[in-house]
């Protein structure tokens, strides 16, 4: 054992070595979930009975599977699904897929709520002006719905960034894994290192949820949109 590092240097070590991967996983997982969730929400609201059932069935199944199980399924369970990607980055894609699919299930609920909370009178008015249903949705309902979804979407971000720490189990070097490596080098610093990890996650969760979530909720109230 060499000299013991102080906490700030552990903090910056974990920040530099682990956080980029965590943020990458979070960003791509959220993006995948956004695309999937929005499509599912549209299917649920406008798709009629048949498409609606697919969407709600998907939500019910995916919301009932723990994320770690999904990650294990996509990496150890069906290792062949990413045969076209080079073997080193396969775990990364597996985790992103798992995060995206899971987040998609939650985000579809969130966007469904947002779309439904736009007054249906607006759709009727837009149709009366001669817009097609798609045009009315694209230009009238969707912009308002996305804005309404922002506060709850920031909550989804807070969930995904913390869930991305599961990736350490399949050999991805993200924040938590880097912290484990540090504490393996300095066993006596185990507890402080975990504290540092907690602080890092908090720093990257709270200000963003506060800024996006709470401020947007207030703004929306001023505009008279949403229940807050």
């Amino acid at each position, binding site marked *: *054992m*060499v000299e013991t590092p102080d906490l700030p240097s552990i903090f910056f*070590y974990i920040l530099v070595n682990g956080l980029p991967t965590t943020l990458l996983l979070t960003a791509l997982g959220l993006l995948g979930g956004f695309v999937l969730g929005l499509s599912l929400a549209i299917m649920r609201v406008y798709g009629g009975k048949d498409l609606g*059932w*697919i969407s*709600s*069935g*998907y939500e*019910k*199944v995916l919301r009932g599977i723990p994320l770690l199980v999904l990650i*294990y*399924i996509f*990496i*150890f*369970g*069906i*290792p*062949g*699904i990413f*045969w076209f990607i*080079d*073997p*080193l980055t*396969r*775990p990364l894609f597996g985790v992103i897929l798992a995060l995206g699919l899971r987040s998609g299930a939650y985000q579809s609920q969130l966007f469904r709520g947002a779309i439904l909370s736009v007054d249906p009178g607006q759709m009727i008015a837009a149709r009366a002006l001669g817009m097609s249903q798609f045009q009315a949705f694209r230009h009238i309902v969707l912009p308002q719905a996305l804005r309404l979804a922002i506060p709850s979407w920031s909550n989804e971000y807070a969930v995904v960034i913390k869930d991305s720490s599961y990736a*350490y*189990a*399949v*050999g991805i*070097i993200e924040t938590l*894994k880097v912290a*484990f*490596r*540090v*504490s*393996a*080098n300095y*066993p*006596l610093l*185990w*507890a402080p290192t975990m504290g540092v990890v907690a602080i890092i996650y908090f720093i990257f969760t709270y200000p963003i949820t506060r800024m996006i979530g709470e401020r947007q909720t207030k703004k929306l109230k001023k505009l008279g949109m949403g229940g807050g």
Partner: protein
Amino acid sequence: MRKGITAIVIIVCVVAGFAAGWLFSPFLTGVTRVSLVDQIKARGYIIVGTSSDWPPFEIFNTTTQEFEGFDIDISELVAAELNVTIQWSDMDFDSLVGACTAGTIDMIAAAIMVTPKRAEELAHSVPYIRVNELIIVRGDSSITITKLEDLAALPAKSVGCQSGTTQEEELTDANVDYASYVSALSMLTDLDAGGIDVAFIDEPVLGQYTAYGFKSIFIVPAEPTALWCKWEEPELMAAINKALLEAFKDGTMDTLIAKWF
């Protein structure tokens, strides 16, 4: 009613999809078998799985930003034999066997001891070192045992081991109600904090934790450790064995043992 049926149909479809993916995924990679050695040589690197909290066998040195340890040096010998570089995959110890079976990693170098149960799932190389396992307690503890089965007399969950290790198997065989930990680190931290009273661990690893002042009360001779890869890849195993045996022959192995132990 129809809703319920649809939900069931979706669940069945998802399960069937996973099953189909599992059954047919080997065929997606091409019907003609390309041996793993050829794949490794073609891509220029071998993916070696390890669990980096097990010094002096393997640890990720956060100062030099490199892996180091006995297993690491031995894997380098194998990589040199294949004329490729190593890409490390650093995961929990109990995930390694599953990862190697799934093909996420090509080879495991994590001080894994040879046991019949593991040999059913994966093939092992010639053994390269044998270490002792220790029963350790806190410095001020008064627990003594004369055989492993004595641990069963202790209160439930007061004995700790790392999950997936030989120690876990031995405790199961001895009918001990143990607590299992993902890493040696969390186990020893818990031992120090008083969560457990006894821990079961490889002898060399204890060197990293001397600051805690644990004492050893019982020594269990353990099985030798080896490198592991899939049974289906005899060519890779041949290369691994060749590298190991040559290291024994020209004295590299003795140098490495002197360096790390």
